[in-house]
């Protein structure tokens, strides 16, 4: 008897918007963008959450500089996310000690539902979901268990990434994409994206200083990258 659905709905009732940052292609910046979005929403004064759904290789905690072996969600009629720079943050990394977590699809499905059932989020303006690459269990679960989730797709101008976005345009998910972020941009591909039927939310260049700020939120939030994300968040929340 699969009965987890009603509880999932209930736990997320107090959350105004659920925004999943997705891309079929890996390494395009989903994790950095999802983390920066959640931090920005908090910074401009709204309650926000971040849930790392890249279960087999979670990495939002590395961006946020959270030491998962020390900080832990508190158990209280469920579990309470860890508060990081104003963001309610949840990740399996708290339980896998940040180790690699080899998982088959059915286990990803189980974790997905378990996490949503036991986590007690506050009333949030937005919950940001970081997702793994490819078109697998996590993306399918988001469409099925969180039908009101919006997608923000990420791409680079590289051929393989752009082709992947084109494929995404041909799927059921495409109707849920509220916009595309072009990351590590070195040439404008706005028109080809608009031809696919998507809105371009931002074109963000590659910043060479960004790498050194991973794990240090204060510095991370002072980068040109964070500035671009702030502009994007303003658009998205409008």
């Amino acid at each position, binding site marked *: *008897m699969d*009965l*987890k*659905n*009603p*509880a999932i709905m*209930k736990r997320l009732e107090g959350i105004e918007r659920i925004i999943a940052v997705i891309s079929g292609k890996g390494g395009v910046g989903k994790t950095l963008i999802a983390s920066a979005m959640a931090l920005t929403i908090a910074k401009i004064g709204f309650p926000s959450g971040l849930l790392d759904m890249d*279960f087999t290789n979670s990495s939002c905690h590395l961006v946020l500089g959270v030491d998962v072996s020390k900080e832990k969600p508190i*158990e*209280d*009629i*469920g*579990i309470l996310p860890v508060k990081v720079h104003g963001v309610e943050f949840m990740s*399996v990394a*708290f*339980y*896998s*000690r940040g*180790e*690699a*977590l*080899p*998982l*088959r699809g059915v*286990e990803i499905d*189980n*974790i997905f539902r*378990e*996490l949503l*059932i*036991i986590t*007690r989020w506050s009333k949030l303006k937005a919950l940001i979901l970081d997702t793994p690459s490819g078109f697998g269990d996590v993306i399918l679960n988001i469409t099925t268990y969180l039908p009101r989730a919006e997608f923000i797709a990420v791409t680079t101008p590289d051929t393989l990434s752009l082709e992947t976005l084109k494929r995404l345009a041909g799927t059921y998910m495409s109707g849920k994409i509220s916009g595309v972020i072009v990351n590590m941009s070195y040439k404008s591909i706005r028109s080809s994206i608009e031809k696919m039927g998507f809105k371009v939310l931002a074109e963000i260049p590659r910043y060479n200083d960004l790498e050194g700020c991973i794990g240090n939120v204060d510095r991370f939030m002072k980068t040109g990258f964070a500035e671009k994300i702030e502009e994007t968040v303003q658009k998205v929340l409008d």
Partner: protein
Amino acid sequence: MHEWALADAIVEAACSLLNERRAKRIALLNVVIGSLQSADREVLKFALTELFKSRGIKVEELRLNEEEALLRCRLCLKIWKLEDLDIPDDVKEAVHFIPEVIHAYVRCLNCGSQDLEIISGRGVYIASMEL
């Protein structure tokens, strides 16, 4: 005590079914407690009872059956019990919240593979429900 959240998920699910059937009474509710998650039986039972009561649902009989956790290695096909795997307490604590994180910690004692399948006893679920 995140058992309350697990209990609540069961109650939510049961109620959504009751709603569909326009019923207010459960004759028999069979809940399985997989030993991997090591949910506290008494807390879970208490929470289920309280939560059903608060929603005005009468449960004639509530059965909680424990199910032993077994992991099978997909490479050498050997089957392991939880005791075999000698899991430290802090790992047990982590597995209590998310049973699947066991894959970060254990390997097949026979061949070393990490391709282990949880074939029973994962966590808490409704095995059956009679109205």
